[in-house]
């Protein structure tokens, strides 16, 4: 049985079963795949270092087409499509790299049954787990408060018969874990 996050002397601690850690690691890795920029074989490493996209100068530079990726990287300026694209040229690569860094760190934390987050690691872990929830929500077509309530009502793993019911249970588990972490982090602010 998983134990939710709580504050401890050394940071924030939780414990997860092997199957839960495997599940979480898989989710973190799925989101990394969504976010990894397409790299060209001859790409100058300088692009990655400065957080710019090597396609930034090209005319066909565009917003992500996958809705889950688009939710992770929304338009910054919905009133001005050109300005939104300009923002992507300059910022998107850096945001992707930061998210991937946090997700990789979170996936590695799943190696041990007892998870301990320092004050420095905790916000990155919270962001990584939040990105997982955003992607799951997109796959579940969670768009309204009513959808959220419908999904929240799934609580019995033995009754899950469809992929969506299983995804809903996964979503609720990840939500529960994030909420416990946020409550502990808010108390320490």
């Amino acid at each position, binding site marked *: 049985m998983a134990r939710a996050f709580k504050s401890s002397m050394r940071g924030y601690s939780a414990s997860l079963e092997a199957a839960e850690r495997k599940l979480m690691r898989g989710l973190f890795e799925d989101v990394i795949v969504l976010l990894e920029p397409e790299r060209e074989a001859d790409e100058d490493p300088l692009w990655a270092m400065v957080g710019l996209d090597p396609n930034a100068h090209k005319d066909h530079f565009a917003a992500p087409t996958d809705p889950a990726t688009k939710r*992770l990287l*929304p338009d*910054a300026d919905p009133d001005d499509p050109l300005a939104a694209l300009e923002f992507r040229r300059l*910022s998107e690569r850096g945001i992707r790299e930061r998210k991937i860094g946090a997700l990789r760190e979170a996936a590695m934390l799943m190696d041990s049954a007892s998870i301990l987050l320092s004050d420095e690691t905790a916000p990155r872990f919270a*962001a990584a787990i939040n*990105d997982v929830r*955003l992607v799951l929500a997109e796959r579940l077509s969670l768009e309204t408060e009513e959808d959220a309530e419908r999904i929240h009502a799934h609580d019995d793993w033995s009754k899950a018969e469809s992929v969506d019911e299983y995804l809903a249970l996964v979503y609720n588990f990840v939500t529960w874990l994030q909420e416990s972490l946020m409550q502990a*982090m*808010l108390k320490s602010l």
Partner: protein
Amino acid sequence: MMTAMPDVLEHVEQVQALQVDQPYVLIVWNDPVNLMSYVSYVFRSYFGYSETRAEELMMQVHQQGRSVVASGNREKIESDVAAMHGFGLWATLTKADAA
């Protein structure tokens, strides 16, 4: 001489300062995924808002669908938007007079 004018003038100056120095605002939009606790945490830790102020802005997002969370020049607001996207919040920028 006591007069009500200084207050009025001060207010006018503040409004003008807002228009000149802070022409952009950061808007955070409601979505049914982000936890209220997470949004409050981001507002407190990133912007340094008090618990009360962060809760107020978070409730505004939740109940009214959006909230103006920060204002400043375009460069500052663009960097705030990038930070909010890093946290996974649905944030956009717009001109202050359009918000």
